């Protein structure tokens, strides 16, 4: 998969304009937050905590949208819906997809800020 799909390049260039020098800070903040969220999501699955799953997926979804990562955003949306409907059976599969997608987004973003 190319970076093009993991990140919306047009929206991202607007984001760079908005953030100017703080763009790197935004990226690292997003990455740090996301790592915490992924661990919350794993805990939620292990403990069968649908509420934690829903809330974490919800805010992960919002942040992903803001960082211009559409696939990650829509995967989080799926997870949120599952938590909402208390249907945790398919969650581990989706959680794996989220983790995989995050890894791609992370490396794409890091390459943008020259890491």
């Amino acid at each position, binding site marked *: 998969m190319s970076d093009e799909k993991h990140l919306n390049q047009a*929206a991202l260039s*607007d*984001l760079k304009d*908005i*953030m*100017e020098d*703080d763009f790197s*800070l*935004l990226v690292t*903040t*997003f990455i*740090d*937050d996301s790592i915490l969220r992924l661990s919350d999501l794993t805990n939620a699955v292990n403990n069968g905590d649908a509420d934690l799953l829903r*809330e974490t997926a*919800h*805010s992960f*979804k*919002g*942040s992903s*949208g*803001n*960082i*211009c990562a559409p696939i990650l*955003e829509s995967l989080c949306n799926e997870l949120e819906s599952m938590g909402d409907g208390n249907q945790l059976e398919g969650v581990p599969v989706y959680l794996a997809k989220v983790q995989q997608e995050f890894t791609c987004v992370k490396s794409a973003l890091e390459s943008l800020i020259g890491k």
Partner: protein
Amino acid sequence: MDTVEPLKILIADDSNSDRLLLKAIVQNQGHEVVVAADGLETIEVYTREKPDIILLDALMPRMDGFEAAERIKAMSGEDFIPIIFLTSLKEADSLALCLEAGGDDFLTKPYNSVILKAKINAFNRMLKMHHTLQQQRDQIIVNNEHLIQEQEVAKRVFDKVAHAGCLHVKNINYSLSPLAVFNGDVLLAAVKPSGKIAVLLGDFTGHGLAAAIGAMPLAQTFYSMNAKGFGMKEILQEINSKLKDILPVGVFCCAGMMDLDLREKTVEVWNGGLPDCFLYRQSDLSYEVLPSCHLPLGVLSPKDFSCETQMLEMLDGDSLFMWSDGIIEATNPAGEMFGEQRLKTVFEEHRSAETLFKELEGRVNSFIGGSQRDDDLSVVEVVMVDKEEFEVENVLSNHKSYQGPMDWGMSYDVRPDTLREFNPLPVLLQILMDIPGLRSHSGEIYTVMSELYSNALDHGVLDLDSSMKSSTKGFAEYYQLRSKRLGELQEGYIRITMDYRGDDSNGLLTVTVQDSGKGFDISMQTDNDYKLDGYSGRGLPLLKSICNSVEYKGGGNEVEVKFQWSYNDSRKLA
């Protein structure tokens, strides 16, 4: 960076990256940003920073955005603090929840800086409008308080002016709201030096201070001129020209005025713009209608103003009613007006003059429904009564202790121009009324002065023969001739000399009137007083009945009268 008015905006979001982004967007738009990461912190920062707008994430730890919004709205009281919810919620229910919690709008993630800018600008306009409204409202409250305070002051001042009068006398019944002056209604009554009772009911256009403003000069002119003995026409003329001068075009005073003469049993009436006045006859329970024949006061310039009055006879017990349009326009709960016809019915059905006023008041009040008393009801009834009875009942008390000088004399010459145009009596009476104890004899003094003056003018200066007046035809001729001679008068004078001496207990006033006429042989006066003055059957005998002495002097063109009274009880001394 755009040039906008910088606002202080609170961003509350638990997501660090989202908060960072939003902060950058908002700062780029030129606003100051303060941040919070959860609901409790949001409230802390709100309290401390007093932001203009809050961007509030819905789902946050410790306290969610819904609760934070409710608390902030409750704390802000009447101040307007726009709250925009930040959410990636898409379901209609959740959005409704944001608005129910007191949110004013919402912004969905991912953020769109153009839309956010538009929203912030829109709320900024609303904030400004809200501030303007608040300021205007506060201003209105302050103004209203001022106005009420001013009205109270004005009312106190007006009450002082208006209460100089004699509305309390027994033959005047009236109904007037305590705040009538702010409805534009004015009711004044005064006893003149001659003993006549002057009453004026006025209704200014408009309401509030604008309506009250004309009442002051009206009342002051009315009282001061009546006290000086001016006639009704002169007073109306003066009030009209004063009101015309001071009131703006479009503000005027509908008014009715009367002079009730208890001695002659007549009433002089002028009605300019009030509804028909009613003269109620006790003898046959009938009534006469006295319609308005003139424009209201303050409309016409003095040269166009007509103060022509109507003279009517009144017997004891007859009464004259004047009212403002409030009584005719009094409205019942169904929206009907009391109207002229109902008013007439009250007069036609009623059988006793003594209770008519109460009956009328009762009928109007029960018509409009007792609960909502109409403040615009201004009615006055003036009853003709016996002069002696009136004077006994309304002892014109003399509270003044000794004030004026005890010993003085003065001489006052009236020459042709003045004789033609001017009545000097009010001025002279004004001086005499300052003499201690004399005010309670004002009626008698007025009679004496006016008899002396008109004798000197008519029979002295104008050389008119009083015997002319004994026939009806001669009566008219007499007055024609009088006005002709007065108009053509080139020379002549009347000299009035007044001398006052007082000791500890008594006062003595000596008045001498000398005229330029040819006089008469005074040796006749002791023999035949009545023949001498038979023209009116009243002149000289009247003077003699009032004064301690009346004496013609010199060539018969000079007469001296003496009047003596006691200070202690104001009693006249024989």
